[in-house]
């Protein structure tokens, strides 16, 4: 068993490896965590994720930009790949499944990938459709996987209008699905106007919102079932 001191040291190293986008550092610290039999869940959330939260803060403060964010994500994944097989139960309180993709006409998937990473970390089942995804594909995949959440991304003013159609098609097929949209030209105004349930300002915010949406959805389902039984 690792001492509290050693635990703190390793958590600090994992956190800093993410902040300083040091893939090797993240791997080394993660391997030590496993070798010492430390709790992998603890290492992920209080080490790697804590580092990503700081990266999110630096991004918001415009100290970090997308290149830094991408490299931090690589460092996080480097640690996560080692730790994940040792996790007995990943638990942020809520788990769900999500369909995610960048809409047709748009090949810009950097933002989508970062949001996807946050879902991976939180233990969501992620169905990633990639980029330039035909609009009908979102609807098909949601029905096929019975996912709680669909996340749509667009980076161009010329492609974002495709989201509007996906939202109405999804809601028509399955009124209970929750839809989140994000991307440079998107705003909370647009999300409201087009009937999306959430707007992802950034990756941290996307995950928080997603957890809220999925919990409210689960609650709704439970209530409906209780009613049926009652």
């Amino acid at each position, binding site marked *: 068993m690792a001492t509290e001191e050693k635990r703190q040291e390793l958590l600090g190293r994992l956190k800093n490896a993410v902040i300083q*986008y040091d893939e090797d550092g993240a791997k080394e610290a993660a391997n030590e965590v496993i070798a010492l039999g430390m709790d992998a869940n603890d290492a992920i959330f209080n080490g790697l994720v804590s580092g990503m939260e700081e990266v999110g803060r630096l991004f918001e403060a*415009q100290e970090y*930009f*997308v*290149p*830094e964010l*991408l*490299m931090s994500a*690589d460092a996080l994944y480097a640690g996560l790949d080692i730790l994940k097989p040792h996790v007995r139960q990943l638990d942020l309180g809520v788990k769900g499944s999500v369909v995610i993709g960048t*809409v*047709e*006409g*748009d*090949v*810009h*998937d*950097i933002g989508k*990938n970062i949001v996807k990473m946050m879902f991976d970390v939180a233990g969501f089942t992620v169905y990633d459709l990639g980029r*330039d995804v035909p*609009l009908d594909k979102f609807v098909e995949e949601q029905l096929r996987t019975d996912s709680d959440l669909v996340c749509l991304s667009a980076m*161009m*003013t*010329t*492609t*974002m*209008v*495709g989201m509007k159609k996906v939202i109405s098609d999804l809601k028509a097929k399955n009124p209970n699905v929750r839809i989140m949209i994000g991307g*440079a*030209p998107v*705003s909370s*105004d*647009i999300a409201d*106007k087009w009937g999306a349930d959430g707007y992802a300002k950034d990756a941290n915010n996307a995950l928080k919102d997603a957890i809220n949406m999925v919990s409210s959805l689960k609650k709704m389902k439970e209530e409906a079932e209780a009613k049926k039984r009652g």
Partner: protein
Amino acid sequence: MTPRQTILKAFEGGKASRVPVTLFGAGMWSIKNFGSTFKELSEDEGRMADMLVAMSGKLLCDVVYAGSGYNNFHAAAALGGSMKFREMGAPDLEAHLAASEEDLQKLDIRSIDSDRVIETTKKACRAAKSRIGDEYVVTLTAWGPFTLGARLVGEETMMKATFKKPALVEKVVDFATGLLMHLYGPLVDDGTLEVISLADPTASGDLISKKQFERFALPYLKKFTDWAKGKGAHTLVHICGNTTDRLDLFPATGASCISLDHKTDIRKAKEVLHGKMCFGGNVDPVKIMLNGSVQDVEEACRETIRTAGADGGFVLMPGCDIPPTVPYENIQKFIQVARDWRY
């Protein structure tokens, strides 16, 4: 004064009788409203020219952009790959990306000479110039050097390479700059183009830092605009994202006019840029142009001109290209506010 003279006057820092005004690119809007498709026009330079002429009369922008939406062909031709047409969005690359310096060395800028679609856009540009070039500025649009470079190696690779392989980034952006010169050279030399229009969305203020912009985007924009200037051509450069923190760098791009995203603080832009270079902007393309009422458009345009453009050296533009579903009435109002504005 013609629309052409009006906007050229602003590029030179002066004031014509009214505020210059133009959309940026607008290829997707124009092709949709002309009742055609990217694919159809790519095979027919006559019809592409007809579209440009018809839309110039409908939109009444000071600038007419040939090739808008066809920018990715330049990268595809260089990579030797094919292009994908589709219902939504501009045609895009199916080519394999250049991943290393070795791959890059195999690329040849002359490969754009044999691309049929690029040839079609150039011919349509020449035809439009001869039909409406006295009245309007007719330009051909392409990606800026940093964005074109990122298309060649992949955006995510490019972003990381700014830290991991800076020398590769410099090489690929330099290659892209050479490609642009090769593309535009003949059109400038034969007098077709007096303005070159470049969009540099990957050099966005939301994607890369000021320092990265200064190292990887700026020197190549400067190299290109110097080259253009040497041939007597103006340059209109659009950069996406919030660039408020780096406005002070823009005069060093050497562009005749810099077009700013709606996220950029236009008041600050006036403070920093007025008297140094012409700038354009920055009515919100989605909130106002797409979703606003005609009255919202009018108010936003007036406010933008009052804040940034009342002293000249300014072009009223949306903060980016517009969605293809923007109501025509909103565009009409957008143009009308500037056309009616007397200094």
